[in-house]
């Protein structure tokens, strides 16, 4: 109904392969972007910095992970460790007197190299074994961070992020921090979208789907898996740094624990493996659903509709989130992206059920 496609034709390959070739999609993206850019104007600081900002950074992190899990098909249950490496590296690089811009790249590279190391070790195997190997990585990295005071600043320590400027803008105000996160989310989004439509993404998908068929057209699967680990870890590292500087402003190892890894995987799965919009939806859902549910239950408890112990209330997020994972896997394995896709298609082919031509 909203989608009008007649008259949309392309005279150049450049436009035929553009992002969002459907005009309706395009203006939807522009509206969303405009809303995001204008957010500091209409959104309270509280919402801006405690909902919008973390949502954007977690979306970027989920996008980094979905590049690896969804597009390249390599499971990773230690992605929080990758982000931790990024976060700690960036802080130390800034403390060493380098500019923040360099620190971000340094964070990405450090995370990418260490991530690749584990990747290379684990790439002989697939599936469950990869899960286990990355899980082991999570524990090892956690341990190293906690037990090397030079990194963590001592056990149980909290490391404050220094004040920085990014492209000559001091990163102090809520708005500046928010725009930093937004910029990063946009960059990662464009990167992942572009990867999906170029030879790199095609090679990754080929390796994921049928590695023997990929090899016969000249794709070196090991190399591409490793590249996927590298790229994804790089993005994860920078996301970790952005999370540390823009959101937490102080890091502790617990912020990047095993549970966080699982949370990231949940974001990717709930959102839909390999989907860009899914990463945003998944991150939002995993972040907000438990909060929402807790609030609903708490409200119901206050109203006296049901009696809930504070203890149960405290555990609702965990249960919600386990139930979410189970629910999505059972009922919509392709995640929120699929639901979005169904809705979009419902309007795209309006008033028919299938595409006409």
């Amino acid at each position, binding site marked *: 109904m909203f989608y*009008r496609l*007649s008259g949309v034709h*392309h*005279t150049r390959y450049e436009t035929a392969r553009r992002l969002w070739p459907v005009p309706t999609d395009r203006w939807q993206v522009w509206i969303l972007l405009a809303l995001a850019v204008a957010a500091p104007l209409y959104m309270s600081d509280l919402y801006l910095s405690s909902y919008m900002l973390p949502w954007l950074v977690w979306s970027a992190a989920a996008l980094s992970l979905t590049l690896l899990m969804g597009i390249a098909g390599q499971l990773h249950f230690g992605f929080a460790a990758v982000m931790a490496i990024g976060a700690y590296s960036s802080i130390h690089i800034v403390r060493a007197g380098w500019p923040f811009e360099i620190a971000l790249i340094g964070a990405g590279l450090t995370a990418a190299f260490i991530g690749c190391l584990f990747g290379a070790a684990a790439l002989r195997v697939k599936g469950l074994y990869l899960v286990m190997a990355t899980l082991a990585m999570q524990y090892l990295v956690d341990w190293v961070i906690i037990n090397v005071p030079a990194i963590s600043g001592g056990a149980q320590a909290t490391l404050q992020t220094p004040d920085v400027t990014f492209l000559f803008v001091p990163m102090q105000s809520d708005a500046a921090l928010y725009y930093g996160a937004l910029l990063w989310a946009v960059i990662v989004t464009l990167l992942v979208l572009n990867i999906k439509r170029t030879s790199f993404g095609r090679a990754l998908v080929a390796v994921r789907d049928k590695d023997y068929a990929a090899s016969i057209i000249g794709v070196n699967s090991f190399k591409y898996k490793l590249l996927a680990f590298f790229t994804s870890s790089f993005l994860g590292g920078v996301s970790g740094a952005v999370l540390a500087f823009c959101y937490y402003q102080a890091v502790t190892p617990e912020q990047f624990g095993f549970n966080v890894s699982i949370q990231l995987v949940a974001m990717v799965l709930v959102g839909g493996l390999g989907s860009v919009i899914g990463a945003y939806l998944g991150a939002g859902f995993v972040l907000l659903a438990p909060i929402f549910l807790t609030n609903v239950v708490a409200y119901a408890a206050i109203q006296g509709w049901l009696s809930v112990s504070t203890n149960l209330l405290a555990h609702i997020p965990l249960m919600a989130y386990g139930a979410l994972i189970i629910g999505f896997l059972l009922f919509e394995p392709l995640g929120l992206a699929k639901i979005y896709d169904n809705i979009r298609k419902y309007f795209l*082919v309006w*008033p*028919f*059920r299938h595409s*006409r*031509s």
Partner: protein
Amino acid sequence: MQPEQQLANETNPAALHPNWQHDDHLINLLARNAREYPDRIAMRERDQGIWQEYTWAEYLDQVLCFAAGLEARGVGEEDNILVIGDNRPALYFGMLGAVALRAVPSPAYPDTTPDEVADQLRREGIRFAMAEDQEQVDKLLQIRESYPELELVIYDDPRGLAGKEPSGVAAFRDIAAEGRKRLEGDASLRESLTGRATVHDVAVLLHSSGTTGAPKGIPLKHGHILAGVRNAAAAGYFDQGEIHMAYLPLAWVGDFIFSVGAAIALQFSVNIPERQETALHDLREIAPTLYFSSPRAWSNMLTRIQVGIDESTGFKRWLYNRFMPFAVELERRRLNGEAPSSGERIWRALGEILVYGPIKDQLGLGRVQRPYTAGEAIGEEVFLFFRALGLNLRQFYGQTENCALCAAQDPDTLKLHTVGKAFPGVEVRISDDGEIIMRGDNVFDGYYNKPESTAETLQDGWLHTGDAGYLEEDGQIVVLGRVSEVVYTAAGERFIPTYVENHLKFSQYIKDVCVVGEGRDHLTAIVCIDIDAVGHWAEENGVPYTSYADLSQKSEVYDRLQGVITHVNTKLPEGLQIRRFVNLHKEFDPDDGEVTRTRKLRRNVIDKHYAPIIEALYDGRTEIEYEARITYETGESGVLRRHLAIRDLPAAGNK
């Protein structure tokens, strides 16, 4: 050189068309477009996945290069050139290149058999051919073995040919390149090529369908084509700068008139689909403003929509059922001259957003301002449906002999059973024996080398169309059918059974019908119900039945059909309304010889088989016991005894 064309009453071409301006021809107009709108898109072809565009400047350049190259290969005035293949830019450029040299393109349908192509080559003394691809080139090379006069075959698609052309075969692009060299070497050549043609030159040699005997060549001159286009434009039939889809065969008159004549005269952009299979998809990508399709294609489109809605989701179907019948009813009333209320207008506007607009968009008809149909009668249901969607669908009327541009329905005075008024500049009359005749500058000057046929068709400058019809008081033309099918009732009323039958068959409930009445006092009908549609209707309305014969004799079914026939009667003159009808207990069957395999009635067989029924239709009985002979699959025949009801119909007031 070719034998001179023998045109029956041609003495001095200029005298025949005193209004024509000497330099008013396609090449000159093309040059004007290239001058005034050099960067506007003249042609698009979907090729290699994207739309390759040609501006008017490039169009002219291609045409002149090719003309120069063609001339170097020995093509000259009045050479006929075969053009065969699917629509391709190069073939259009090639045709115009030939025209610039005052040669005459003679297009053939791509699926024409080698024998038929060979006939065409011989009849028209053709020495040069332009072919789309290897398949057509192979066909021509095969013909060349028995027709060595074929000097040169020019191909467009290099696949399988480039680099290993047999002698006498050359690529379009090579000829154009040779031409370009000539143009670069001779500064005046470009101008000379632009100015050679005249308005009196034949621009294209088209062909009659040739169902009986050899096809007749129909030469159309620049003047005819331009006159036709301008007449039509004056009637609002075309507008400047239309976006047009060139998907119908090159050899069909409409394509040359729309894609070349009107396109050049009125600066259309002509869009060519990638392949026949992708035509629908490509149509949507282009979204033309001008769209022609046959009644059958419109009807198929309606079926596709209905199937699509049937399998659509509940809510969408519900919406469709809210809005679509409403719009059809509104359109029906609008055609009857009733204006919608403002509430209905608002409801219609809502429907445009929710239903009509999206459907048009899905079909690629979202931008169509001028959708047309012609060729045969279009069903009322189909016609109303698309008009209800908000498409200003209109029928037009014309023959190859008058550039297919003679008359079209006018949006303000549109009546379903007419084809509208003649275009300005075209005079239409009914001859004494009821034939539609016309004259105007768009009417051709005679068949190619067929003086007898020309003399029959063109009498005193009037084109005899061979169609029987009449003019309504406001000048709208009603086409009844071919003159050869006309019969008379006892009262001397002239009618064409096929015309009445076609109108009856627009109802989905009637599969076949035979209208009887020649030499009788009134008309009657033998009806074969459509078992699918009537059966479906019966199920929905709780009418139990066991077989075709059983169902056909149900009084509810008779009631339903009575409604259908009465409705058709309202559109017929009083003396030609159907007074009685019978439902046959079986379908007309080609195995019984009652219809041809293509389901055309064989009236003499039906008259013989059903003589008792026909008698009963005229002697006032209300039922007849009839023994039907049937042939089983084994080849044996048997007899079926049936009581058939006969129903009287009241006279209907006609409009």
